[in-house]
């Protein structure tokens, strides 16, 4: 079962603190259709890549402070974070392979 952590300003720093795995974060909103389209793909990625990456998500309506601080101006956006650096930012709803590629490259 996919483990995608719902993140906010309080839990985000702790999520990033552990550098043993690459972090993947999806920024989304309930009213954004392409965001809901991406959801099954994102959950499948979280399932498949659980060994090499931690997956989280930020609802920008509930945690606009997090998306604002990271300069997110478009949803859905998926950030791939290695250590403290965002190594990839993928905007829009894309094919699963493009996320797989970016995450594997970061590992």
């Amino acid at each position, binding site marked *: 079962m996919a483990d995608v952590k719902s993140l906010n300003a309080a839990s985000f720093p702790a999520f990033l603190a552990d550098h043993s795995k690459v972090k993947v974060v999806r920024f989304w909103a309930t009213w*954004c259709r*392409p965001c809901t389209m991406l959801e099954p793909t994102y959950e499948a990625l979280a399932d498949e890549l659980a060994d090499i990456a931690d997956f989280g998500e930020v609802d920008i309506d509930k945690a606009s402070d997090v998306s604002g601080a990271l300069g997110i101006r478009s949803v859905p956006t998926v950030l791939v974070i290695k250590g403290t650096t965002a190594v990839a930012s993928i905007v829009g*709803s894309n094919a*699963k*392979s493009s996320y797989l590629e970016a995450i594997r490259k970061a590992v």
Partner: protein
Amino acid sequence: MSSNTSHSKVLIVGSGPAGYTAAIYAARAGLAPILVSGLEPGGQLTITTDVENYPGFADPVQGPWLVDQMKAQAERVGTRFVSDTIASVDLSERPFRLEGDDGHVYTADSLIIATGAKARWLGLPSETAFMGGGVSACATCDGFFYRGKTVIVVGGGNTAVEEALFLAGIAASVVLVHRRDSLRAEKVLQERLFAHPAIEVIWNARVEEIVGTQGPPTVTGVVARDTRDGAPRLIPADGVFVAIGHAPATDIFAGQLATKPGGYLKTAPDSTATDIPGVFAAGDVTDDQFRQAITAAGQGCMAALEADRFLAGAQPPTTAPADAGDRAAS
């Protein structure tokens, strides 16, 4: 057959009004269709707001709701939906063979292509550089980020005007930048646009560059050139929404099917038959003229009926020009 392969009499690729309508008709004809949804299940209607021209609804309905209803109807009559994106296609022999993004193989006795169209971009390097940093093609997704700000909408068709009107309800001001001196959008939309106090229109201006600051990329405006005297001007804005039309989504069929100018799939007159027997095209992937939800739905219906006839052994219509002698008497 391996578990990694699915076979169907009718395979439908694409999930807008054309694909869903094809699915409804094919399922009701007992053809047990499989529909592969693609990257944007529901298609362009999912990012539109009020739909006021689809018959059957006295009051405006929401685009996402309308396609959800179509999908539910297709599902109720027996369509099998697959959440996958087709990565490669082989139409050289039957059954046709298509491969999904994950490697799943779909074989089919007939194929209905309803992949629609994807948003066209300006094609500027600066546009790519500021993607996600103020450049967007989806007002309903990204309008949220521009509350109280100034945004530019580039374009002059229905989508551009609808996006401008939607954004005017969120942003402090909206500037519609169009390269011509008139709009292609429907009159009723134009009237609403011109009457809106928060929307300004800049005519005869071609966007040449998106400008902004780096780290993180943040748009500060666009440079546009006057199409009459060539004078450049800077139009300041916090966001740029590109709405300059759509291009048919035909990449995966490149070199396998005949196309019309603009890359639209070519079909026989009064038919959805492409130049490969058993392959049909419906909706925005083939329609370079009307591009409406209702015409896409109509073509989806035609495609399913034609696929049914094809599977029953009928010769499909040909895309070759009609015999010159075969004309109605004048």
